[in-house]
């Protein structure tokens, strides 16, 4: 177990190093720079600005300096277009919002998706199965930029207590969490249905049935453990994705989360912010995958 964890951590660090390096050079290959503005910046001003951020130096020098600051001082750098704002400030302001929204969405996804998948598997080829499958299909096919505004217009404009957008009132998380949660619930429903169907055909389930174990008990005690393995493998990275924010959801519901920074930083050529966000997201994915692996080992004795 310890060996598994150590090797995964080592692999994770290596992944992060490659990620940081690739991102560093890739963002600098994009056309334009953080100083490309609608109203051209005069040459003598541009020179001064570049000297401040160090972007006037040769690329290898910039890379060495970035890595040195990152490794020894955990310094992600400053935003280029914003005055004296640190990348770490942006992430630490936005991440708690995305985390809260991600947790709520994950809760909805688990509470809706897994029971729907299990019911569909147990009641295979019945109207219950078909409705669960239909729900999953709709959830997967309809993008969030359709579900979100539909929900905002139908529920938000109808109920006075629900704001169509914003992040100030205690009920403001409901619509974005439902939108984000439902999409993931759809995937979870399909995965747990498939997983459960596999398990329900296994010999040990038949044995349990033959021994007269009640149906509900068979499912909860014996089938769920194995049936949820595909869903758990999905949950790890999906959760990392959910807590790192969604550009679409944040734009539709006006939420000060992480997702919009991914898109805006790329559009604005905010080099240090892009690098910081990619590294942070990479770290979340690596950590979530590690946890998902450990959860699978805990659930599935064959993997030990």
């Amino acid at each position, binding site marked *: 177990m310890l060996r598994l964890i150590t090797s995964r951590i080592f692999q994770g660090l290596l992944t992060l190093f490659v990620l940081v390096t690739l991102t560093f050079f890739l963002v600098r290959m*994009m056309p334009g720079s953080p100083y*490309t*503005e609608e109203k051209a910046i005069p040459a003598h*001003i541009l020179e001064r600005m570049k000297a401040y951020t160090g972007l006037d130096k040769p690329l290898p020098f910039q890379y060495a300096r970035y890595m040195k600051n990152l490794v020894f001082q955990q310094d992600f750098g400053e935003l280029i277009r*914003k005055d004296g704002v640190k990348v770490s400030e942006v992430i630490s302001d936005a991440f708690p919002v995305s985390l809260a929204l991600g947790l709520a969405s994950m809760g909805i996804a688990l509470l809706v998706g897994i029971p729907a998948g299990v019911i569909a598997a147990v009641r295979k080829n019945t109207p219950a199965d078909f409705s669960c499958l239909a729900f999953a299909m709709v959830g997967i096919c309809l993008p969030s930029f359709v579900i979100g505004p539909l929900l905002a217009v139908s529920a938000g404009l109808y109920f006075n207590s629900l704001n169509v957008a914003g992040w100030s009132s205690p009920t403001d998380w409901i619509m974005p969490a439902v939108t984000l949660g439902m999409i993931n619930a759809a995937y979870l429903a399909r995965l747990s249905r498939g997983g459960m169907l596999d398990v329900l055909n296994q010999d040990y389930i038949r044995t349990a049935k033959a021994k007269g174990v009640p149906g509900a008990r068979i499912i909860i005690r014996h089938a769920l453990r194995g049936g949820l393995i595909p869903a758990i493998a999905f949950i790890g990275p999906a959760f990392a994705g959910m807590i790192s924010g969604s550009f679409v959801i944040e734009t539709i519901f*006006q939420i000060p989360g992480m997702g919009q920074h991914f898109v805006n930083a790329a559009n604005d050529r905010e080099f240090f912010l892009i690098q910081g966000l990619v590294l942070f997201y990479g770290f979340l994915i690596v950590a979530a995958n590690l946890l998902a692996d450990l959860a699978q080992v805990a659930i599935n004795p064959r993997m030990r």
Partner: protein
Amino acid sequence: MQRLPLILSACLLLVCCDKETQVEKATREGILLIGNTADPKSFDPQVVTGVLESNINRALFEGLVNSHPSEDLTAIPGAAEEFTPDETYTVWTAKLRTNAKWSDGAPLTAEDFAFAYERILTPDLGAKYAEMLYFLKGAEDFNKGKSKDFTSVGIKIIDPHQFTITLRGPTPYFREVLKHPTWNPVPKHMVLKFGKIGQIANSWSKPHRLVSNGPYRMKSYRRNDHIEVERNPHYWNAKNVKLNGVRFLPISNSYTESRMFRDGQLHVTYTAAPDVVDYMKKHDPVSLRQEPYLGTDFYRFNNTRKPFKDVRVRRALSMAIDRDALCKSVYRGYEPAYAITPPTDEYTPPRGVFFDPEQARKLLAEAGYPGGKGFPRMKLLTSNREATQPVAVQAMWSKEIGVEVEIEFKEWTAYLLATQTLDYDIAFGGWIGDFIDPLTFLEMWSPGNGNNNTGWDNQDFVDKLNQSFQSTDPAARYDLLKEAESIMLSEAPIAPIAYRGKNYLLHPSVKGWYPLLLDGHPYDSIELVPQPPKRE
């Protein structure tokens, strides 16, 4: 389990119960809720350049003069109770109010203004908009490092409440220039407390530290969520400030913004998308505002590339655009443009190229492309994937003169880069005036100006502009500018398309909000009046 329906109905009741909307609550409290597209880049008035930052700055800082709430070309006294020019409009004397103070109670003095001008012009600060102060005598040399001595710049302090500004030449419209946030003072005592004069990213303007001299001061800020300003008790005219505060919301998506308006979360939106305009016209025309704005949309021709080196080709393409049809069917609230400078009460631009397909075909034939034959397939560069207007122009050129162009989309930064490095054939462009004067639309077409981006170069045009800089008579100056603009329009380095309009939504409870060409509404004269409840 039996209680579940009960709990669910309680939740539903909680959600459904009739509650005051945010706008109703804010109206009661005297706080204006306003959509402002994005999070500001800084609160330092000398560092920022954008419209959204100006909107916030206007609440926090006050320059020598203020905008009039309803008249575009009128400046009302601000921090200076008197601001008078000499007879040549070159030396201006500012007499500051003795009761003007910073929001921390410190007095506002001539020293703060002189310091602010020195700071923005200090090369080390790297202020992008420093050139707005090039009107000052000696400012350009100081900013470009040719002179190290600030006493060479035309600022002279007479006493703590009086100073003179000497300009590089006669500038009768200087009061309009002064409305720009780059001319606002900064608190010398605070800037120097947290850094040096030319220090980039000086933390004095961090929201929790910001000291300002306008009608409002910073109350709270949450990144990408809101900025709220509250009454500044030290403001010299605090008793006449009507609103208790303004809350700016950085809503980037115009549809989200419109939904928030409809849901009672906003008093004013930043914009309204064309389909929202159509919807509001039918369902809530009272809240829809469509007003002229000091901006022009146009197409740049790359004057350094064939076939656009030939003025006949440029004129032919410009003549084949039916601007009336574009404004009627594609734009909402925009007016057809036949010049680059939008008309104002004081300046009527000359009429340039207009829709004349027959003449266009003739010119194109003279240039060697009869019926568009042999015309190279050109690309029309745009950054807006959803814009229908380039498609309409593409069709007009094809139909009227047989010229086929291909629409090329590039995302914003790549588009800017292509335009600025002249790596395009035809490019969509736009310009918003910094202040209300034709100069802000004409100066950019001088050769070597960083915003020309067409490669067009005409000495007669430059001469006329230079003559206008020396003119002390406002009417004669406008004539010279008109002549300069005529020269430019006859050469057609660009094809003007439309004067911009501003479409937005305004809640009926907002009073004292009048159309302004630069949309620079002074918040202190705005009032919120609760509306009687609507009967469904």
